[in-house]
């Protein structure tokens, strides 16, 4: 039987720096549970991947939960901004670097 890995998406998020990276991920998980339920949140497999400088963090989630996560991020207090989304971490990092250098 063919064993296929679930598709994932990497999200670069900008936050105010009021909370650290782990707290931000927990905030997203709690808000997502509140809006879409605990089971959906667990199924989305939200994980912290990287915490960068300049208040940018990278999280990962399953593709099927992406729409829920994106709307959760828009409805989270304190505000968090989704800077970019990519299917691979490498591509996300490359694009982020490009954006930061451009600015």
């Amino acid at each position: 039987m063919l064993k296929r890995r679930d598709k994932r998406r990497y999200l670069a998020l900008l936050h105010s720096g009021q909370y650290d990276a782990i707290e931000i991920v927990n905030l997203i998980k709690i808000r997502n549970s509140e809006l879409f339920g605990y089971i959906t949140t667990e199924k989305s497999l939200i994980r912290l991947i990287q915490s960068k400088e300049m208040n940018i963090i990278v999280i990962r989630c399953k593709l099927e939960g992406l729409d829920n996560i994106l709307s959760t991020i828009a409805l989270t207090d304190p505000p968090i901004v989704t800077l970019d989304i990519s299917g691979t971490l490498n591509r996300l990092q490359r694009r982020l670097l490009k954006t930061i250098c451009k600015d």
Partner: protein
Amino acid sequence: MAEILAIDIVGADYHGKVEKNIIYRLNRKPSIITNYPYLVVCEKIDQMLSPSIADIFVVKDIKKINANLKKNKVKKGIGLEVTIADLRKADGLQIGKWFNQIRGLYKFCKSSNCQLILSSGANSALEMVSGRSFDSILKICDINPERYWRELELWIESKRRIRCL
């Protein structure tokens, strides 16, 4: 920042400086011809219902406004703006209801030739909402994002054409 978030044009208050890709939000129509695009925004229902020149009406309480809008005749082509910023502090129950109200408001807009405008209501760059997040919110409200953006673009263009720039 807007470019990073995949947003082509943003709405902002006018502070005397004209910048590219910004449509300025004014409280009243300027008496002179301007060299910048603008939209007249109102927050009071009587301002919107009177034969005024308001382009956008900011909907603060959808539930209250729904009854008012259905009772009174709304000016054709007006934009009904709903902001996301206020929802950040709302609980899950309120947000659930809000999604349903947006669905209803969109249907109302369709039937009365108005334009639904989903706005971040941001006061700073950090409060902005990315284009992709808007799409997700629209999908949850059963609104086709592509269709929504296309209609919004046409609406903005139609308003721009009226103005002398």
